[in-house]
């Protein structure tokens, strides 16, 4: 299969552009062969993924090389799709939204530029993975902890810039970013916040700078290429405790979410809390066929089997506590008092104190165990994340969960729900698991996802993050004042990126006809 061409380029024009890229960053780091392009196809693609095939890959090693590529891309009118490490699994991986973009792979920019142990922050490049950062902190015996997402294979900055989440007090990853360096679409270089000063001594200490804060401009956007950023880290606490709460009945969601959200709002629980269904728990340790091998959606009787055999509830929450020993011990008693009587079980906390093995702690240790869930149906699997943001109201969420579960069952896909409980919002991270080589299932999943987005939007719930195949669909749901947000985004995009060369169409911004 021949490579697609980027934008409106002729084969000759594209060949000239690639030659120019090679001249800027070295021949070895510009790849356009079939085998190389294949390694960038989304491994979770719905179908073969060729509808999001790239035309080539350019992998710069420095900010200067990024600037050179961006300038050349303008000159040759080549749209670029920047990825930090290309592991945005469930959202399109490394693949561009628009077929034929050149992937700007920043994996080689993997330096931990600085770690300040006293002030508890680091400055890192986009190619630094969660494993890299964990090992850097361990190598240097730094008593700083990091938050990790379910899939830690990817980039720390890439995950934060797409507003990924983890489950420690630093789990709202975008909130931990303090100070961004970015290459603008015309090749100019900017530092945000206090980094806008040439000396910028407070760059990683204070987020806002002077005048408008532009940091959010680089999140879920296509208005620049982030080449490094500051990230706040958690000072190692004196003690942690962790416990899993199992709520036996589906209807327990109402009171349990209200109780957990109240503790979250008061910062007794300092992290966003996972609240997940049986298939969520079972999918990281078993396959569907272990429980049910019939057609249609998995029945409640199979979920009951999971509950019995795995010793879980219909809803399962993980709580982690961090702090000084006296505080953590008091919080344990508080939480036991709230939940033990209603659940009818003693809560057994696992505690960690400084010097204990790290696995006993509630710290984030990078892992890819969550990827196991794509083997649920067998075959080459994938997952699509449907994740609307909702107010954290127990009754609202129970009613919603009941309706969504019924629709999964009507369509014939297994209901997998996880409500991530924040201070005032709940993020309904529901994965839709599938076998990507089963065309009928792929069709069902597409239908299910489109329905869920529309259904959520009808109630005023919008997605927190989008898959490359549905970015326009989601952007359409942000429709206040006849899509005023889109008009603003497109005006800014046209102004900063007149050639539309940075990730055209990402998050519905700068979509080309």
């Amino acid at each position, binding site marked *: 299969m021949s490579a697609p061409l980027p934008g409106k380029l002729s084969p000759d024009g594209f060949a000239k552009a690639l030659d120019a890229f090679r001249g800027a960053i070295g021949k070895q780091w510009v790849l356009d062969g079939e085998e190389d392009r294949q*390694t*960038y196809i989304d491994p979770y693609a719905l179908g073969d993924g060729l509808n999001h095939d790239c035309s080539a*890959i350019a992998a710069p090693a420095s900010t200067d090389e990024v600037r050179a590529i961006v300038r050349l891309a303008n000159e040759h009118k080549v749209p670029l799709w920047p990825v930090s490490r290309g592991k945005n699994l469930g959202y399109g991986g490394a693949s561009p939204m628009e077929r034929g973009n050149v992937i700007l792979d920043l994996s080689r920019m993997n330096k931990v530029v600085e770690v300040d142990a006293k002030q508890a922050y680091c400055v890192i490049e986009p190619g630094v993975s969660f494993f890299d950062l964990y090992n850097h902190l361990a190598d240097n015996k730094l008593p700083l902890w990091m938050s990790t997402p379910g899939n830690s294979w990817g980039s720390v900055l890439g995950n934060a810039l797409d507003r990924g989440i983890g489950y420690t007090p630093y789990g709202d990853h975008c909130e931990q970013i303090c100070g961004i360096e970015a290459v603008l679409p015309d090749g100019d270089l900017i530092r945000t916040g206090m980094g806008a000063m040439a000396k910028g001594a407070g760059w990683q200490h204070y987020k806002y700078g002077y005048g408008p804060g532009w940091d959010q401009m680089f999140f879920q956007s296509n208005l620049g290429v982030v080449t490094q950023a500051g990230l706040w880290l958690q000072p190692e606490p004196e003690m942690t405790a962790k416990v899993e709460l199992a709520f036996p009945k589906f209807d327990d969601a109402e009171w349990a979410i209200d109780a957990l959200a109240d503790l979250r709002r008061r910062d007794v629980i300092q992290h966003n809390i996972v609240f997940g269904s049986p298939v969520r728990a079972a999918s990281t340790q078993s396959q569907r066929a272990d429980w049910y091998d019939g057609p249609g959606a998995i029945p409640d009787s199979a979920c009951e089997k999971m509950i019995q055999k795995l010793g879980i509830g219909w809803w399962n929450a993980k709580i982690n506590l961090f702090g000084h020993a006296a505080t953590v011990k008091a919080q344990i008693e508080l939480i036991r008092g709230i939940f033990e009587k209603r659940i009818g079980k003693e809560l057994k906390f696992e505690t960690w104190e400084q010097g204990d*093995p790290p696995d006993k702690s509630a710290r984030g240790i990078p892992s890819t165990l969550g990827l196991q869930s794509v083997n649920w149906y067998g075959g080459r699997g994938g997952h699509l994340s449907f994740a609307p943001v909702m107010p954290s109201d127990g009754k609202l969420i129970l009613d919603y969960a009941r309706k969504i579960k019924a629709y999964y069952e009507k369509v014939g896909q297994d209901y997998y729900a996880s409500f991530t409980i924040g201070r005032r919002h709940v993020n309904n991270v529901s994965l839709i698991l599938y076998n990507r080589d089963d065309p009928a299932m792929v069709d069902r999943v597409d239908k299910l996802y489109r329905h869920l987005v529309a259904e959520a939007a009808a109630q005023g719930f919008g997605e927190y993050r989008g898959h490359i195949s549905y970015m326009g669909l989601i952007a359409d749901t942000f429709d206040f004042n006849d899509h005023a947000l889109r008009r603003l985004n497109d005006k800014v995009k046209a102004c900063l990126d007149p050639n539309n060369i940075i990730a055209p169409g990402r998050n519905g911004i700068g979509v080309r006809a």
Partner: protein
Amino acid sequence: MTASRNPAATARMTGRIVFAAALGLLAAACSGKGGDAPAAKDGRMPQSQVVRFGAGSSSEGERLYGRECAFCHAGRNTGTIMLGRRMEPDKAELHKRTDLDADYVKTVARKGLVNMPPFSRVEVTDEELDKIAAWLADKGRAR
């Protein structure tokens, strides 16, 4: 990670080796008393050790395996669970396999296999993959 490609990363790697060697000594000192880190419930390596796999090795192949492969193929992780479903339990972790051929390893890494995604030549260069594959294959011959 090649030394020539990224000096900063190489510096980190060197630090990692020193630290892991210290950990190894600590573990040795604790042997017979239960060790420093508890084994996971299923007897597999705890995740904090999986993340550090190979860091103390004198073999670059093993260190690269630790960095690029072990997070799925050691301990209780996605690769070991998936392989454990269709192979003997002692073959679920790649570093315990004695039947791996270097060309096979390279093909799987570049093409992917069922749910394993392929690795690009930016993420793992040909030179690095050669070293990983040789280490996995040589282990088998040594036994």
